[in-house]
Structure formats: C-alpha cells, structure tokens
C-alpha cells in the first residue's frame, strides 16, 4: 500500500473537516481524563491497603470470644482456616494520656481520656496480623504498652505515661513503642500477663483469635467463615467477629464515596464517547461518502480508503488521549492526596500502567468504531459511494414521509424535517442514544449533587430547626470530661434548666429536645461507636429512615447502615453492646440514612444509652421553629 497518497488524503480530510476533528478530539479527551481519574482512584484507593494487608498477613477475621483458650486454639484446625494466631487475652480500658497535636500544628499536648481495646501479645510477629513497629520496642514486661499508630504522626509519644482509670488503683503504663496493624486488631498491646491487672472486676475473660481463610474475598465468604467459627464454639461465646472487608471499607472511606460516582461518570463517559465517536465518524463517513467514491474512482483501494479514514479519526483521537491522560493525572492530585494521608504513604500518583492502558484502550475503541464504519464505506462501489453521498439509501424513510405528509395540521417543512431521521435510521439511533446518555450524565451529576446537598442540609439543619449548645458540656469523642481552662461555669443541670426556660419563653419555638453525643469503644468492632441520645421525642428532628421506624421507647434504638454492616445485624434484631463492664441490649427498630460515612452510630433515648455510657449528658438542644420564625433571631 502506498502510504503517501493515503496520508495526503487523510490530511485533506482533516483540514476540510476541522470541526469534526475537534469534536472527536474533545470527546476522547474528556473520556480519557475521566477514565484515567476513575482507574487511578480505584487502584490507589485499594492498592495501599492490599499491599499492607498482604505484607502484614492481615487478619481476615478478628474474633473476640469468651470461650476457653483450648476451645479457641482448636478453631485453628477448622476446615478452611489457613492460618491463625492466638488466643490472646483482651480487655477494654479507659485511660488518660497526653496527646500531642498533629505535625504542622503547634500547641501543648492535651490530656485525653480514651477507651482502648488492649490485647496481650508476647511479640508483634506471627502468622496472622504481623504488626509493624514504627517506633520504640515491643512490650517486654509489666507496665509497658505499645500503642496503635495511625501513621499520620499525631498521637502519643514513646515514653508517655498512661493512667488506666477503669481499674482500682489507676495503674500507670509507659508507652514503649508504637505499631501499625492493618486490620486494627487492637488499640494497645501489653505482655499477656498484664491483661489480668487491667481487667475490671466483673468483666468477662475475653480472648482474641486472628484468622486467615482459604476463601474470604467476599462478604458472603467471610460470613460463612464466621458462621463456621460460631458453630465450633459454645453458644454465645463468640462476642464479636470483625471482617477485614469492614476495615478495608473504613480505610478507603474518605475516597470511597467519590469512587462510584467517578466510575459511573467514567462508564457513562466511555459509552457516550463510543456513541459520539460513532456518530461523528459515521457523520464524517456519510458526509465523505462522495469523497470516498471520488478517491476510489482515482484508484484508491478499499484498504487505502479505510486507512485514510482511520488516520483521519486517529489523529484527533490520539491528541485527545494524550491531553486526556494529562488532565486525568492533574485532576487526580487533590483526590489522591487524601488517600495518601489516610494510609500515611507520602504521595500517591496514577499508576503508570493506567496512564498507558487507558489511552491505548481508548484509541482502540475509537479505532474499532472508525474501522467498522470505514470498512463499510471502503466496500461500497465507487458509483454507489458517489450516489449515496448525495442522498440517503433508497426506500429508507419513504413510509415516514408518506405518513407525515398526510398530517395536514403540520406545515409541510415540519413534516419533512420530522421524517428526515427515518432516512438514516442508524445514525438516528446513535444520535438518540448519545443524547439519552448525555441526559443521563447531566441528570446523574446535577441530580445527585443536589439530592445529597439537600439530604445533608435536611439532616444537619432544616429551615425550621436550630441547635443550641450548652457551654462546658462534654464534646463527642474528645474524651475530656468537664470544662477546659476558663472562667467557672454553672453546673450542667443549672445550664439545662436555663436553656429550657429560655426556649419555652421564645414564641417561635415549636419543639425542643436535649441531645447527648459521645463516642465509645465497644467490643467486637474496631471503630468507635457514635452514641446519640435524645431526652424526649425527637422524631421531628428530620432523620431520613431507610427501613423500619423511629424508636419509641426504652430498649429500642435506630442505627445507621455502618452499624448494621459491622455488627452483622438487621432491623428487627436484638443486639447486645458491650463496652468495658457496661452492657446494653437493644432492639434495632430502624435504619437511618447517614450521609457522613462509615462510623457506626446508634440513636436512642438518653435513658436507654445511659446503660452503656453512664456519663452521657446533653450537649445541645435541637429546636424546631414555627413557620416564619427567623432562626438567626
């Protein structure tokens, strides 16, 4: 095949149809950028976790049980268990320590009271959950503790003293090291003999077992593995079983909400790009059919015609791919930096293979689309090409023209225009599909954003709702009970009485309810549990229900989706929460929509939650306003 005439013809086609070339280039650019971004985020949101999980032989199931050590050790030989570690004695303590501010922030270290799951391990290594020491050394004797670090630099320094408040005598522990556990199997480790001294009176003897299984890639497989463990232990002895998939979900949480949307946009962009490219290329081929006929009459072979049209499409597509990869990488920088912070892995970038594979796939896609259409054009006889270049194929659209011609209510130019698409049905279908996907993309993008904004707004503060904080009340998760430095404040009870009186005096007050929030540890789940307790009827506060109904009495609670997934429960189940020496059995009556993420949350009356967290006290009042009331006033 003589190349120069082919290239010359393609160059002529490109210069003669600049708009088509620009459209192809832009479509491919946008699609490549979206795909690069989507793939990059997908890979980088999973890769660091997977890498660390493999390196540390992460625990696929972390079980907490009251069974004897012998029974637990026997579970290591269950069918499907490929590796196991433990049993390790476990307990939950409340400890006070000085926490330094994160790197880059100045200020003194502040005292913090936290609940910690403490496990007794003789060494950091083992066949499962092979811990990585990031500073100091492993605990070698009584009074020493190794703390879990999040890898972000904030936390407790080696040498810091912890005061364990949950046991008599408030023993002190010295932080001798910090370690990372990819599955967050505990927040602190001591030598096994130390656990007995840290266990509060009346709390059960808990032990931790760590497992890896032959099949644990999906939630269903992990659930089956947990069911096998449960069956092998005495009834009720398995207190909690944490799946590695849950931990992974939490670890990838900050970026996870974006990924499905970006992938969806990537897929829509991909489909749209195929349709638009097909439309544009078919348009170019149809518009250039006469030209194809002329080229063939001059002696172009079908192969040369195909090559000419492929080059004509490939040049703008290639430029679009290159620009799209660059754009995708630039767009990924802020999003991937969030992922990097989560894992503490420095900087993340779109993997090189994504930078290569995406444009190659995109070019292949465009090339295939163009090839199919160009092959059809190349197979036409020159006469047919010259003839059909001027008119659609005979018989196409005749019926539509006839039918619409009888519609006397419409002007004839309108009926001719309406019948036009039937003359070229394939192009009409492609155009229609591209428009449909375009509408989907716009609706998806605009509608989703607007819906989430609205839900978030509704959940935080409706137009008729305000929050009134109580100064000096405990802040959720701070662990610091009581006020900080500053002038002395009246007692909380006195402040509550004052707030209630003030609210009642306001003519715009329609409802009000005291709200108490706290974060606690509870056995069997790695993450903290958010408690939200209401001191009265709070059904009007605007929580959107996914399933079930709002709690209506003591012992009933609503939870979010993360709670259900992490505890393996469903609406209607009864579940016992254990935090240190406190137990709470609740009936889950509803699932609330929680747009803020993956931390488990339970919502109930304050009196119900007090069984689990005796220190739970109102921190604010949620106030419903009468219509027309100015919230700022």
């Amino acid at each position, binding site marked *: 095949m*003589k190349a*120069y*005439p082919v290239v*010359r*013809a393609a160059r*002529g*086609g490109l*210069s*003669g*149809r600049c708009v088509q070339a620009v459209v192809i280039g832009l479509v491919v650019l946008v699609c490549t950028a979206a795909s690069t971004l989507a793939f990059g985020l997908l890979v980088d949101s999973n890769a660091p976790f997977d890498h660390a999980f493999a390196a540390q032989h992460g625990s696929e199931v972390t079980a907490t049980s009251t069974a004897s050590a012998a029974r637990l050790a026997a579970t290591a030989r269950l069918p499907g268990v490929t590796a196991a570690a433990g049993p390790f004695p476990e307990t939950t303590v409340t400890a006070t320590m000085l926490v330094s501010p994160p790197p880059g922030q100045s200020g003194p270290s502040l005292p913090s009271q936290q609940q910690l799951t403490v496990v007794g391990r003789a060494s950091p290594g083992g066949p499962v959950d092979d811990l990585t020491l990031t500073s100091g050394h492993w605990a070698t004797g009584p009074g020493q503790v190794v703390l879990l670090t999040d890898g972000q630099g904030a936390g407790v320094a080696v040498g810091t003293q912890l005061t364990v408040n949950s046991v008599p005598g408030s023993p002190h522990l010295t932080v001798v090291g910090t370690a990372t556990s990819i599955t967050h199997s505990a927040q602190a480790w001591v030598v096994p003999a130390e656990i007995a001294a840290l266990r509060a009176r009346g709390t059960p003897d808990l032990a931790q077992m760590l497992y890896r299984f032959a099949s644990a890639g999906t939630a269903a497989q992990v659930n089956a593995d947990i069911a096998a463990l449960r069956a092998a232990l005495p009834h009720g002895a398995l207190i909690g079983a944490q799946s590695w998939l849950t931990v992974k979900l939490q670890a990838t949480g900050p970026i996870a909400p974006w990924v499905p949307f970006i992938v969806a946009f990537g897929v829509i962009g991909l489909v749209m790009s195929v349709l638009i490219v097909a439309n544009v290329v078919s348009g170019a081929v149809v518009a250039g059919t*006469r*030209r194809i*006929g*002329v*080229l*063939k*009459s*001059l*002696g*172009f*072979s*079908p*192969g*040369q015609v195909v090559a000419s049209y492929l080059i004509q499409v490939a040049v703008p597509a290639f430029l679009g791919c290159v620009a799209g990869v660059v754009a995708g990488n630039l767009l990924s920088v802020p999003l991937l930096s969030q992922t990097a912070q989560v894992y503490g892995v420095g900087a993340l970038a779109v993997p090189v293979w994504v930078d290569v594979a995406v444009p190659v796939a995109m070019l292949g896609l465009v090339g295939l689309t163009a090839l199919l259409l160009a092959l059809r054009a190349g*197979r036409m*006889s*020159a*006469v*047919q090409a*010259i003839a059909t270049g001027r008119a659609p194929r005979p018989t196409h659209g005749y019926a539509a023209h006839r039918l619409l011609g009888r519609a006397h209510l419409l002007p004839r130019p309108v009926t001719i225009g309406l019948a036009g698409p039937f003359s070229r049905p394939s192009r009409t279908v492609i155009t229609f599909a591209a428009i449909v996907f375009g509408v989907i993309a716009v609706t998806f993008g605009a509608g989703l954003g607007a819906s989430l904004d609205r839900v978030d707004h509704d959940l935080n503060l409706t137009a008729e709702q305000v929050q009134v904080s109580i100064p000096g009340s405990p802040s959720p998760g701070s662990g610091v009970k009581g006020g900080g430095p500053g002038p002395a404040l009246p007692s909380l009870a006195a402040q509550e009485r004052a707030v209630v009186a003030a609210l009642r005096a306001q003519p715009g007050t329609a409802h009000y309810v005291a709200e108490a929030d706290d974060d606690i540890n509870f056995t069997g789940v790695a993450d903290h549990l958010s408690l939200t307790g209401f001191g009265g009827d709070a059904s009007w506060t605007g929580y959107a229900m996914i399933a079930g109904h709002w709690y209506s009495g003591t012992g009933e609670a609503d939870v979010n989706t993360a709670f259900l997934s992490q505890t393996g429960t469903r609406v209607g189940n009864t579940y016992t929460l254990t935090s240190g020496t406190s137990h709470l059995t609740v009936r889950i009556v509803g699932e609330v929509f929680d747009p803020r993420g993956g931390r488990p949350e339970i919502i109930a009356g304050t009196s119900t939650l007090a069984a689990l967290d005796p220190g739970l006290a109102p921190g604010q009042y949620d106030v419903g306003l009468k219509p027309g009331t100015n919230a700022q006033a």
Partner: protein
Amino acid sequence: MNSPNSLGADPTRRPREGGIPAIAASIRAAPSFGMDALIRLEEVTKRYDSDGAPAVAGVTMEVSPGESVAVMGPSGSGKSTLLNLIAGLDRPTGGQVRVGGERVDTLSETGLARFRRRQVGMIFQFFNLLDDMTVADNVLLPAQLAGMPTAQARARADELLTALRIGQHRNAYPARLSGGERQRVAIARALVNRPPLLLADEPTGALDTATGEEIGELLLDLNASGQTLILVTHNPDLAVRYAARVIGIVDGRVASDAATGARR
C-alpha cells in the same frame, strides 16, 4: 455493430492551431494490447434491482485504440451505467467487460483499484475534485497512487496544468475556480497517469455553452493526439461535433452505432 476501422484515429491529424498547442506532447498514444479492440463488451447486463428493468441490457460492443466514441441517449437510458462498467466503477450482473485484454468484471476490489489507476482517466459532469486539496495536489494524487516518482509527478502535473491554461491556479483550491477551470483540472487529473482510455461522463453538462465548447475542443484535440475517448452525452450536437462514432443507447440497449462527420 459498427466497424471500428471506419472510425479509427487519423494519425496524421494534428491538434488545432491556437487551441491547446502543448497538449499533444503530453498525450501518450494508446498502447497496443496485441489485439484490435481496446474495449470489448460481450452481452453486458446491469440490474440495480433484481425484479426491475436492467439499466444495461445485453450490450455488446468494441472500441479500438485511438477512437473517439460518443455514447448518447436520453436520461435514464443506461449510458452512464455503461461508462461506469467500462471504468470498473461498477460491476455488471452479466456478461464480460474487457479493457486492454483484461477481464474487468472479474477483478477484485484491489484489482479494480489498480486497473483504474493505470488504464482509465475519468472526467465527471460535476468535476468531483477534492475540495480540501489544491489544484496541484488534486492532479498529483493519482500519480502518487500509481507510484510515479515525486519529481516526475510534479513535472507532469505542471506540464498538464500549463497546457490546459490553469497553471496560474496550481496552488488555488477548486472552490475558487470557475466551472470551466475546474473541469480543466479534472481533465489534467484524468491524464496525469497517461491512461490509455479517457472516459468523460457529460463533461460539459455543468458548464455554460462557451465553456462547454472549449472543453469539447480540448477533448477533440486529445483524441487527435491518439487518446482513446469515450464520451457520454445526451446532447446529439455535442456527440456529432466531438466524436467520430456515436453509439445510441435506449432502454439499456444499443439502438444505433454510426460514424459521424467529426473532424479528426
């Protein structure tokens, strides 16, 4: 069928003085294929619809090298279809088409492309120039396709454009040219590979009378230089003036085949 001999080219005839003097030098005489006829059609039929009337119905004819033949008939008579079959732009549904001894109707698509490059120069009613290429590039393209060395192809294109009095427009785009100038470009493009056979489909149909006559004279001169020419027209006057032989087509069949008094 008329005898081609009575309509054969007159090798002693020279191009008209003051017409296009240089054109004769640029014309290659039709090569001998070792046989009498350059074109031989045997019972050629072409149907576009399986149940419709044939566009060309059992046409048998021969054209000798150097002849100028006008294919004449009313609109829809099948004359353009006949020309397309000879040019290898379309395939017959029956019969045989031989050009230069080669069975055109059995060639593959690639074979047909090669055949068109080497054997045929085609002139269309509406010029069919490539609007996105300059005049020079339009003329050069078939030469490049045929593998002619670039320098030689440029020289040949310049020679033709000058001879056809459009050398000054060599870098212009076709859209800027008049109809007559565009048709001259089309003729230059058709001749650039020195094809043995020049086919013209209503070459003056889109031109005004004066320009049409000018193009007609040009074709006449080309034929006088030995170029085999088949001209399709529905205009009897044009056929008689510019062709030595007129084949009349009616309803796809040869209705007449006669010599004219056209000068050679």
